[in-house]
């Protein structure tokens, strides 16, 4: 009875899944799902992180109101408004030469600084240059003086800062020499030039354009020498038009004189002379050619012009090849202002400038030709400013109220145009793709084109694949289809050891051993590349001529034992014969000595016009190829070996040779796997870093010359990241480089995957 029920129970149980197995099965299901999701989440997380790092590069400027302060009731007397670098002490510069400060931080309220310029002269003109903070005054008696409107911070015991005005004034210098009244005067001073140019009105009512250079005695301590009058120039004759505006470059190196008809006269201050170097019309192609206003950008070589319809152009000095001197040429064209621009205010930190007209303000960035920010205010703007640290914007309205804004624009140099477009940077004759992130001088513009880096990456990959793909694929084909199985079992592990070589070791070898070795032996290498295939083909032909009794005496798959010594000997012979070939083929005249020398390194530039460097793409191609070969080889070998044996024996049984079988049956069937192998090789080469860093000079170039170096995107990150301040433009641009690499890999992957699916559908073997 008891027994029966037990056996009955047991039969039921037999058909039930044991609870433990069921539980484990469910657990594993969830575990795999969670694991998979986590992997996807991790990849997405990296992507999102990079994306967040990069995104700010493409944002415009953010401008937020900080405060409003009434500064004056009489705006008509205001020449300019300026601000200290901390944004605490704005100053109104007034027509009578007095300065009126307003303490925004402390409780000092309005600070009147009184007259800057000494009494004894009657001011007849006043002009403020915000780029170098110079206030220039002219007098009734033909003299001029200038004052530096500076600031001086003072820190108390608690490190609390108080900003004080710090104004230094020059002596009066005689511009006119004849006691004429000065209508307008501007002054600029650099290390080598100090130049004042002005318009004087003589007693008969005639106007004269007069200029004078100042000279500074070199004091013993290099500074503070006495300044005295130098040469005097009269430009009146040179200018046959009514003058509208005079602008002396902040470094005193040249002066722009804008005529009322829209012509601009450029006088260069060089070698103690002030000569008319160029006459041009910035808006000569427009119906209304007149110039509304002109002023300089930071860096003294570019000038911003506005036209009468709100047009806005930048002209820069660059070397004109025909005339052999530096001339102004149009470099940028901005979108026109919706309002007629009435005020121009340059930034002193970068190539930004502010245009205001009526209620409209527009912050523009010259290098990238972009409008960073613009707005229509309810108040009428009469003066504006850009904070010294590019972190403040200030506007003075018609009622005398000063509106101070916080400016947040950390990456003005960035933008799609800067990264991928041709940009004309200062000093360049043509727009170009340039990567140069850091430079020696303060007013250096970072040049952030990714194009040379992308080209560098592609170039390295191309040469590596040119070298690696044929060797790896043919090697895999040979190993899987022809080589004796006993040897085959040794080849794969060897290849895998090769794959595990750290790339820094390969890069080290490339830089210190291969590059110097190949440097003098390029002809040898070319001979080897030519000789080995020829020798192999010749051997094959001879082999075919032998009676097949002899041929069958070598077991299938061991033929290479015969061939390899021949190839080795060919290699050695070709290598030795290299210098001989050089003597015959690569002879050039050494430009220094005039002798005929056999040197490939000289021949290549002479013959192709391209450069030759020791650490070139050939070396990279070799070494990176070396790193890539095992990867391609093992994947390709796997997929070739995985071709169903039945297909192979089917082909062989029909009397096809091993080669015919390999090419007609095995290769097409394995083609999806081979595409994968190539793809992984390309990805590896694209991402490869240390070899490229060490084996090239890391110069960002834009050519595919095999004997020049390059800089790859990946290498760029390694080279630049020590210089990249956290979350700065360069920092984010490096992330953009990483993202670009990611996208490139993604595109290549996608293309290959599509091709692979296509091939797989076409060549999928049954079952």
């Amino acid at each position, binding site marked *: 009875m008891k027994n029966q029920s037990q056996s009955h129970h047991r039969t039921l149980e037999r058909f039930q899944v044991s609870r433990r197995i069921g539980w484990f099965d469910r657990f594993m299901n969830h575990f795999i799902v969670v694991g998979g999701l986590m992997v996807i989440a991790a990849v997405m997380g990296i992507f999102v992180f990079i994306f967040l790092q990069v995104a700010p590069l493409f944002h415009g400027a953010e401008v937020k109101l900080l405060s409003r302060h009434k500064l004056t009731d009489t705006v008509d007397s205001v020449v300019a408004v300026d601000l200290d670098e901390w944004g605490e002490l704005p100053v109104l510069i007034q027509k009578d030469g007095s300065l009126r400060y307003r303490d925004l931080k402390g409780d000092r309220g309005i600070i009147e600084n009184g007259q800057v310029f000494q009494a004894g002269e009657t001011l007849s003109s006043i002009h403020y240059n915000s780029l170098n903070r110079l206030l220039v005054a002219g007098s009734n008696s033909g003299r001029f003086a200038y004052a530096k409107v500076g600031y001086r911070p003072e820190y108390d015991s608690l490190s609390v800062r108080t900003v004080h005005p710090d104004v230094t004034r020059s002596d009066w210098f005689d511009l006119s020499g004849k006691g004429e009244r000065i209508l307008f005067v501007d002054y600029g001073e650099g290390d080598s030039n100090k130049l004042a140019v002005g318009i004087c009105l003589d007693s008969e009512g005639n106007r004269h354009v007069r200029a004078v250079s100042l000279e500074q005695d070199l004091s013993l301590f290099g500074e503070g020498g006495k300044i005295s009058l130098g040469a005097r120039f009269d430009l009146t004759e040179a200018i046959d038009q009514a003058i509208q505006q005079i602008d002396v470059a902040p470094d005193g190196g040249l002066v722009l004189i804008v005529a009322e008809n829209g012509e601009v006269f450029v006088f260069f201050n060089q070698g103690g002379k002030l000569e008319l170097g160029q006459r041009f019309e910035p808006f000569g192609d427009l119906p209304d050619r007149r110039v509304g206003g002109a002023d300089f950008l930071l860096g003294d070589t570019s000038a911003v012009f506005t036209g009468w319809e709100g047009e806005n152009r930048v002209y820069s000095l660059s070397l004109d090849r025909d005339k052999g001197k530096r001339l102004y040429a149009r470099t940028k064209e901005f979108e026109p202002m919706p309002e007629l621009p009435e005020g121009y205010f340059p930034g002193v930190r970068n190539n930004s400038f502010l245009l205001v007209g009526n209620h409209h303000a527009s912050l523009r960035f010259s290098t990238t030709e972009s409008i960073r920010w613009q707005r229509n205010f309810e108040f009428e703007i009469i003066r504006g400013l850009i904070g010294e640290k590019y972190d403040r914007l200030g506007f003075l309205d018609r009622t005398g109220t000063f509106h101070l804004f916080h400016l947040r624009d950390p990456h003005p140099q960035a933008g799609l145009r800067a990264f991928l477009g041709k940009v004309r940077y200062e000093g360049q004759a043509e727009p170009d793709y340039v990567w140069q992130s850091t430079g020696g001088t303060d007013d250096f513009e970072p040049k952030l084109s990714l194009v040379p880096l992308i080209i560098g990456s592609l170039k390295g990959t191309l040469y590596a694949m040119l070298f690696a793909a044929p060797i790896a694929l043919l090697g895999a084909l040979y190993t899987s289809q022809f080589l*004796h*199985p*006993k040897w085959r079992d040794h080849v794969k592990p060897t290849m895998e050891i090769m794959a595990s070589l750290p790339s820094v070791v390969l890069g080290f070898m490339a830089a210190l051993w291969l590059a110097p070795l190949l440097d003098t032996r390029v002809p040898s290498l070319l001979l080897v590349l030519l000789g080995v295939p020829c020798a192999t083909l010749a051997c094959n032909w001879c082999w075919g001529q032998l009676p*097949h*009794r002899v041929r*069958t*005496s070598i077991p*299938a798959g061991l033929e290479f034992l015969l061939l390899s010594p021949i190839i080795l000997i060919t290699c050695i012979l070709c290598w030795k014969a290299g210098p001989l070939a050089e003597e015959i083929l690569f002879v050039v005249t050494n430009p220094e000595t005039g002798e005929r020398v056999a040197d490939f390194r000289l021949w290549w530039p002479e013959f192709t016009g391209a450069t030759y460097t020791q650490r070139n793409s050939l070396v990279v191609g070799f070494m990176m190829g070396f790193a890539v070969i095992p990867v391609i080889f093992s994947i390709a070998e796997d997929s070739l070996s995985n071709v*169903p*044996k*039945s*297909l*192979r*024996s*089917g*082909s*062989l*049984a*029909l*009397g*096809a*040779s091993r080669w*015919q079988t390999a090419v*007609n*049956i095995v290769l*097409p*069937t394995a083609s999806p796997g081979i595409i994968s192998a190539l793809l992984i090789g390309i990805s590896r080469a694209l991402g490869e870093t240390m070899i490229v860093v060490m084996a090239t000079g890391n110069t960002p170039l834009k050519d595919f010359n095999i004997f020049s170096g390059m800089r790859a995107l990946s290498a760029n990150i390694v080279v630049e990241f020590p210089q990249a301040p956290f979350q700065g433009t360069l920092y984010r641009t490096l992330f953009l480089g990483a993202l670009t690499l990611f996208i490139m890999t993604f595109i290549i992957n996608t293309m290959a995957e599509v091709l692979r699916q296509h091939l797989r559908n*076409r*060549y*999928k*073997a*049954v079952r």
Partner: protein
Amino acid sequence: MNPQWQNRAASRRRDPRGRDYISVKDYCFWFGQAQVLKGLNLDMQKGSVTAFIGPSGCGKSTLLRSFNRLNELNPQARHRGDIAIEGLSIYDPAVEVISLRKRVGMVFQKSNPFPKSIYENVVYSLRVAGENNKSILDEVAENSLRSAALWEEVKDRLGESAFSLSLGQMQRLCIARAIANEPEVILMDEPCSALDPIATAKIEELIHELKVKYTIIIVTHNMQQAARVSDSTAFFYTGNLIEYNKTQEIFLNPQNDKTEAYVSGRSG
């Protein structure tokens, strides 16, 4: 047929027994250490159908694959003894494997069409032999497909992938492919094992027709099939040839107990 095959050096070594088209002499075969065939001796006549029967693993396929030296793909394979076709040893150093395989075609147990079109599958052997004349290829393709009783079914879709065929059609395609090479011997390794009775009947019919032109060796587990298609039957057991005789004799009057047990379905 093949000049290399019939060169003078070879003809001097012709076996005096001549009459027997294929002769296996003391043939032993090893995969590594394991002996698979143990000293086989049998002769086959030209234009006959010989059936190989025996329990699974007894070495029928191995022997079959020895005739076109396909076992050599396995590096472990070793043999002793000899196989001669028309008196010439297939292991003669003067014999090229390629020409041997052109002479001895094979149809595999598992149909193995190439990942190509139906047409290209059929003319594959001509293509690898260097024949590219379109009209010749077309003619051979049609004749072979007709011989394999497949022509009517595929004549309108020759350009389609061979994988679009049914299993039975694929097997007949493989037969057509073998026929296109114009072999003298056709080896068939369980050609019908994956087929339904109708397709099997078609292939058996086909074997009857082919017998006129070709010498056929067929491996089968189907006793009725062996009885229907073959002239002689060889029964193998663990690498030994137990009995070899006219098919009728084997089935109606087996001399060996094992044979009797096997053909009557009492063992294996």
